């Protein structure tokens, strides 16, 4: 019962936060300089047409009326119509959202797989050359500006070595039917393995660029957490029982060492959305980050 009450209280506390967020989003839309009517109709529109459109969009109402209208639509799941393409935003956002989720998932998988394993082995072989190399790379990784890493990757692997494509999600001249908008799944559904390979190749560079910082952070946290766990009594007991090193490290120690790592992974997923804006700009990735960036320009 106590847990239920606690959960309900926490959920109720979310309401003012969500209201505040919607107010901020609304304020941002309002405060960005420029006239939406002018943006839609262009510079040459007649004053009459502009005034009509303003009336139609409800731009002449006081701001709090506009806010409640916006809030009401938000609760109905209606995010409004894009001023630019006239399509409802919920429909228009679908493919962008899928593109960003695909990229974020791939980079997070990369970050967790490499980061956790590098951290474990570094802790296991503490003060070895492997440990020092890993921690040096992790240190540089934490300080890496995403956009510079992306540019360097493009230059080396796409332009100089020509191993991997540098822009977009697939070869635009050779598309498959978009069913889920997740290109990996779409190409499997279409049974096109050559296209699957193409999609994966397009994912590698942006995935690594976006995943490097979380990878470095995860590696450092895993290492220090593993070192702490490895010193505890139950690990000594497990060793004393004569269990193999590998078994002790991966079965016994890892279970407890992963708890702080999981917390960090959760935080990093949130931060990835921010990094996605930059990565998507560099790699011409048609995702939410780039969408938001251009939408601010178009006053959507």
């Amino acid at each position: 019962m106590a847990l239920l009450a606690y959960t309900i209280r926490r959920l109720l506390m979310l309401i003012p936060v969500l209201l505040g967020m919607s107010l901020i989003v609304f304020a941002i839309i309002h405060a960005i300089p420029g006239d939406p009517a002018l943006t839609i109709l262009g510079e040459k529109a007649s004053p009459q047409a502009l005034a009509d459109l303003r009336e139609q969009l409800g731009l002449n109402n006081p701001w709090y009326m506009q806010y409640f209208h916006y809030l009401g639509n938000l609760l109905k799941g209606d995010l409004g119509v894009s001023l630019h393409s006239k399509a409802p935003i919920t429909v228009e956002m679908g493919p962008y959202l899928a593109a960003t989720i695909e990229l974020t998932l791939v980079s997070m998988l990369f970050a967790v797989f490499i980061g956790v394993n590098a951290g474990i082995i570094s802790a296991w072989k503490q003060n070895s050359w492997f440990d020092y190399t890993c921690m040096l790379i992790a240190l540089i990784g934490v300080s890496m500006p995403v956009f510079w890493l992306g540019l360097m990757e493009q230059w080396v692997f796409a332009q100089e070595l020509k191993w991997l494509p540098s822009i977009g999600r697939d070869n635009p001249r050779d598309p498959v039917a978009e069913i889920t908008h997740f290109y990996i799944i779409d190409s499997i559904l279409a049974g096109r393995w050559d296209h699957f390979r193409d999609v994966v190749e397009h994912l590698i560079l942006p995935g690594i660029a976006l995943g490097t910082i979380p990878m470095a952070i995860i590696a450092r946290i895993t290492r220090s957490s593993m070192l702490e766990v490895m010193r505890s009594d139950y690990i000594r007991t497990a060793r004393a029982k004569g269990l193999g090193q590998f078994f002790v490290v991966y079965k016994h120690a890892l279970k407890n060492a992963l708890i702080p790592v999981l917390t960090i992974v959760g935080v990093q997923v949130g931060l990835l959305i921010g990094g996605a804006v930059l990565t998507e700009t560099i790699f011409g990735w048609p995702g939410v980050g780039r969408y938001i960036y251009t939408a601010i320009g178009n006053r959507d």
Partner: protein
Amino acid sequence: MAETHVQTVPVKQINEPISSPWRDAWRILRKNKMAILGFCIILFFVLLAILAPFITPYEYDKGELVDKNLPPSAEHWFGTDYNGRDVFTRVIYGAQISLRVGLFAVIGSIVAGTFLGLLAGYYGKWIDTLISRLFDIMLAFPSILLAIAIVAILGPSLENALLAIAIVNVPTYGRLVRSRVLSLKEEEYVMAARAIGSKHSHIIVQHILPNSLAPIIVTGTLGIATAIIEAAALGFLGLGAQAPQPEWGLMLSDSRQYIQKAPWTVIFPGLSIMLTVLGFNLIGDGLRDALDPRMKN
């Protein structure tokens, strides 16, 4: 046994230097090779930034088009860019910009965050609820997106980018100070101060602020690193410094189309961002180990 032991203690204290938390921290910090390396990197960039006009014979915003996209050479250490401007000159003038933005953005966030955090933690009640919820709301947005939105409202410029970064990072310091205040309020010496009738302002300035300083310094140093990256990111997106300012992020986005012909125009500004950020991260890590062992993880 016990008596002789008691007698030796004062003698020992006279010979040893006076011990205080700050001295202890300095002693630990001096032994930390990585932190010293960080200090050296930052000192190097600070010197470059201050002495820029004396180090380079070129100007950061003037170049000969005849000399465009020249590879690194004895005259142009880092080569020249698409306008024939000396890249080395632009990089060291860029150090001025990035260090200034990093420092002032963090100072701004610390001042505002400390004020709000003190208010929330010390007075509690509805002020606490209001400020804490405000922080929750701000932290719900990815910081770079919030910064982009603020710059979009104010108009793109270096000053507005600095302001946006400062605003976005206020909750980090606000929450930190608030939690310090909440735990310090329960300390016996603070209760004692209140019991003898000290004023609120006296308790805050004499007891709470000095004891919140260590975590603020640690987070602030690491915060400079983040602020420099965020400023460069805004510059890269065209929302920060404007041409012809030699801002590192802006230099990257300006030169990226020439990356194959003149890779040095992209390599060196990016490398400078990375090294500066690395330097502040190293110092921050070292300070954390020295000042606040509990924060170590």
